[in-house]
């Protein structure tokens, strides 16, 4: 096995993912609720209502509890002097190497939910690809952005 990258992303990410999972589940549940009401009014078959209920509940469970947990457990990164390594993915584990000399610029980005929890997303762009580290502690992200761009600046090599 290749040794895993060392750094984990912030634990608060878990909370944020659960909240956004909760929001999308809420929408699904509302739709399901509407359908079930219709079903009761128009006398649909009982099993159709059952299936709808099952789908809504499974979706909520997966989005609020299962997925954030698995995702967080897998997410790791490491910024070394000459490269950045990322590991992510729930069902398919993906590991990516980005050489420092190929980094063109680094962005941080923060939505309202992330801001509330003092988190932000770091986006690392090469000339051809964009890679994202979601939900880092805000100061950590800022620090990371600064260190990547200073490390990347040392390596002055053209495309």
């Amino acid at each position, binding site marked *: 096995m290749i040794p895993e990258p060392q750094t984990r992303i912030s634990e608060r990410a878990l909370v944020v993912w659960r909240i956004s999972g909760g929001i999308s589940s809420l929408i699904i549940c509302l739709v399901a609720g509407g359908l079930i009401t219709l079903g009761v009014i128009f006398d649909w078959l009982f099993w159709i209502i059952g299936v709808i209920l099952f789908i809504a509940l499974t979706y909520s469970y997966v989005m609020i509890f299962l997925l954030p947990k698995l995702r967080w457990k897998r997410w790791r990164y490491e910024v070394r002097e000459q490269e950045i390594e990322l590991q992510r993915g729930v069902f398919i584990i993906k590991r990516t190497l980005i050489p420092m000399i190929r980094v063109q610029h680094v962005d941080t980005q923060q939505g309202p939910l992330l801001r509330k929890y003092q988190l932000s997303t770091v986006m690392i762009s090469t000339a051809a*690809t964009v890679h994202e580290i979601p939900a880092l502690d805000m100061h950590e992200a800022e620090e990371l952005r600064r260190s990547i761009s200073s490390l990347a600046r040392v390596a002055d090599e053209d*495309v």
Partner: protein
Amino acid sequence: MSEPKRLHPIAAVVNMLRQLKELIVPLIVFVVFGSSGDGGNQFYLIAVAGGLFLVFISGIIFWYRFTYRVEDGELRIEHGLFVRKKRYIPFERIQSLDVSEGLLQRPFGLVKVKVETAGGAGAGEAEAVLTAIRKNEANEIHDLLVKLKKSTHAVEEGEQIDSKETVIYKISSSELLLLASTSGGVGVVISAVFAFFLQFEEFIPFDRVFNEVEHFISSGLVFISIIIFLGFLLAWAISVVGTMLKYANFTLKRVDDDLIITRGLLEKRQFTIPIKRIQAVRISENLLRQPIGMASVFVESAGGSALNEESSKVLILPIIKKQKVARLLEPYLDDYQLNSELHSVPSRAYIRYLLKGWFIAIPIVLVVVFLFRPWGYFSIALLVASALWSWLEYRDAGWSLYDGLLTLRFRTIVKSTVFMKREKVQSLTIKQSHFQTQKRLATIDAVVKSGHGGSGGKVYDLDWEDTKKIYNWFSRKED
């Protein structure tokens, strides 16, 4: 050459024609629908005339406001009527230079110059297009580009270097014929014809035509078949002639540190790409050429864009015996080892290739069998075809590492072999699903810059140990 200069006035005409070409379909629709109503004819005529007049004027204004000059090692372009736009391109940032001699430019001894950089300002056009300038001016720009590089070399080595020119490849007429007849252009022409008819479906009274032709049809299916066959033959002939005109006199040269490609009969083009700007080399074998052992070779360039694929995936050898590629190119492409033995994918991976194909094929077969009961069973043949295709994909997958060079071979529809230098790879990803982990397999995906975005290679289900080797080769971790 530091005075701001205008393009040749013919540029105004070229721009007008281009705008007219874009307007032609809306114009026709406008006129057709407009004149079908009674009375308002004059209004429509005036509107069309007004539109044409605007195109005419804007062409002239564009030409009038567009200036270019070479200053301080930069190509400087200024244009725009209300919003003045200035674009300064340093020569050392130029990725490629595309000089073409169109039908309009040629009578005046003019050329069109396209300059590509790695920047992605617009997804569509090149970074700078000089629509019509004199040939010697284009040569001057080209020389400046070359000289600039040479002067930095000369300082280092302290001597004057004469430019060294070697012709690497020149297309022969039999190769040209082979190229044209096996190119995928046939499909393009056929689909263009179909698209054309679909476009006018509303205007052509197909129903009436069909009714009249009906007794004709019943009189002979053979006749119809012949017509269709002739149609295809014609489409094929058009595509062959088109390809031949495009690639006639194709020549690949190395001049100092640049590759220079010239081609074309009606429209002559010259394409320059500095060798150190090459992002990757790709050998591709399509279904028609692979059985006869022929291949084409492309280089990936950081210039160009998705809409302008010819300058991001540059064809350097249009058609060639596959065995000859390495011998022909290796002396001229520094550090590219094009002949290395490839390691293949382990045999336990085949089942995954097979299932991936069947994953799509099985639902189709099920639906067809279910809907068309007796005859639908023939669709089971699709499973066999899919299995054979998967076998091809499995057999063609491969990889190798040689010094600083990663080679990946894979098949989508076309079989591609991609050669990537370590320092040109933008990012490398390995992917492993739960099932792959159990079988100790993994997928590798390497990205190089190509035009506006990325290109590269992706090979499924390599042996895990091999994947690790490639990953560690790319990693810059010190230990």
